[in-house]
């Protein structure tokens, strides 16, 4: 029996989760939502996390109905992410670890997403599309690492969606991407946008500049905001499906898993499903509870690391804003 508590706060979500032997006992989360037209900045986001972390931790322990003595280890997101929010959460993780006298486990955020996706969907060895506000990667496992086959060469997909939502002054509640997804359902006329794929890598910055410069003009020409949202989604998602498929063809993989906040998008899931079907592969996807950053994913990765004896001493527990997925030795897999 392994029972681990996980702390996550690398961006604007703050979550604490407890996982015991692959079962999620509790996974409460709060989100820092900014006004329309505004993104979240490190300072205020960290302040939000500091103000709420004790109540979320309390809620997590209450929901799980266990006492700290039943917990084997404390895991937390060590990176990648925004510096100040990462620090504000790491401090609490270190404190409770010492208070309860439990070992500490520093988790790579991206590895957390992958392990949670594997746990929830039962996917064994999938090619992973990891899409979120800060990351866009096509990942496959080989020789004890989650290898990055493809990624964005400039900005992340979620970043591009968030910034376009700001151009249209869409609400950030519950998230800009969700509101773009809803708007896109009313889109009818497709606007051709820059489509940039380099092998298994993609680029979104040209696409964003294109839209930032021309949105006003396009709206005046009779395109609706829905048309623009639809065209943006169709173009970006097609790029991602194409590179994911290229990685699958290259590695000979027959499973594909979508993780990360943008992975909630139903249209992205639908497109990936069609691609998978056309090549006789299987799609695995999760819902909002586990796609979006949460504490349980850090706890689950913590469980795997606990089993493999991978602990983090206090002296090595400082956070890092840049922490690549392939830096972690995956000792818990063959």
């Amino acid at each position: 029996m392994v029972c681990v508590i996980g702390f996550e706060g690398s961006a604007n979500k703050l979550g604490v989760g407890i996982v015991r032997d692959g079962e999620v006992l509790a996974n409460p989360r709060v989100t820092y939502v900014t006004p329309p037209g505004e993104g979240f900045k490190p300072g205020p986001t960290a302040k939000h996390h500091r103000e709420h972390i004790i109540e979320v931790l309390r809620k997590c322990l209450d929901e799980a109905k266990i006492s700290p003595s039943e917990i084997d280890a404390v895991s937390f997101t060590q990176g990648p992410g925004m510096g100040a929010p990462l620090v504000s959460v790491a401090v609490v993780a270190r404190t409770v670890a010492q208070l309860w006298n439990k070992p500490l486990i520093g988790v790579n955020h991206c590895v957390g997403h992958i392990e949670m996706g594997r746990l929830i969907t039962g996917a064994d060895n999938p090619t992973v599309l990891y899409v979120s506000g800060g990351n866009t990667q096509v990942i496959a496992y080989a020789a004890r690492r989650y290898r990055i086959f493809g990624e964005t060469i400039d900005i992340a997909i979620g970043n591009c969606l968030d910034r376009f939502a700001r151009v249209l002054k869409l609400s950030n509640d519950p998230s800009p991407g969700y509101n773009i997804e809803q708007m896109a359902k009313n889109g009818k006329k497709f606007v051709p946008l820059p489509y940039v794929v380099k092998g298994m890598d993609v680029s979104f910055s040209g696409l964003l500049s294109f839209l930032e410069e021309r949105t006003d003009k396009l709206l005046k020409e009779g395109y609706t905001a829905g048309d623009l949202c639809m065209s943006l989604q169709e173009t970006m998602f097609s790029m991602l499906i194409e590179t994911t498929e290229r990685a699958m063809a290259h590695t000979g993989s027959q499973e594909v898993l979508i993780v990360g906040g943008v992975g909630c998008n139903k249209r992205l899931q639908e497109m990936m499903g069609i691609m998978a079907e056309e090549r006789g592969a299987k799609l695995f996807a999760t819902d909002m509870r586990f796609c979006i950053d949460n504490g349980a994913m850090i706890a689950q990765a913590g469980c795997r690391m606990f089993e493999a004896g991978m602990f983090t001493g206090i002296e090595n527990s400082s956070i890092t804003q840049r922490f690549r997925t392939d830096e972690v030795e995956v000792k818990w897999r063959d």
Partner: protein
Amino acid sequence: MMKTSRERTGEKWLTERKSLLMQGAEARVFEGTFCGRKAVFKERFRKNYRIRQLDDHLTKERMKNEARSLSRCQMAGIPVPAIYEADLFNRRLITAKIEGLTVKRLLKEAEDQGDLSKIDNILYQVGQGIAKLHGINIIHGDLTTSNMIFSDGKIFLLDFGLSSSSDKVEEKAVDLYVLERAFGSTHPNLNLRYPHAIEGYLHSVGKKSRSALLKKLDEVRLRGRKRSMEG
């Protein structure tokens, strides 16, 4: 069974599509016969996940890129499969079949045998081949060890769907970086051998472009690694 007039004229003109070789990201690849010769049929079937307008546009662009780059390579004496037929309407490209192993397979075999000098040799030749390609200002756009076949002592380059034409050192460096990344994830244990490919490349270009390329390559690598994760 009735034979078609084409078949009746004899084996010499036989054109038929036979078994599926593989399904890539963009096309189904079949082997078969074109006018009696062994051929590869690359069919870019409609991708139902993307909307029709985008699919038509991408397919047309990529077929044109592929046919154009292949014929330019052929004229320059760079080993690529010969084009037999390019049919934009039916989304089909027929080329010669290159017999041999992919560089991916070849490297895995050499790795299993522990034959380092063979690995270094292959990589050096890969580098030389790409230098030749860049020499006529073609950017491949999707260099991986699966897209190269070792045949007849030469390395044949395949899959030019993402190729473009450019004389910019930036584009060439990105092309090499794409290979470096694909190589690193496909052959994780051979990372230390990879510099042999760069060596082969540099050996085949002029002194001036050599330093410009190395500088740009460092720049591109840094861009990939140090990208901000915020947002």
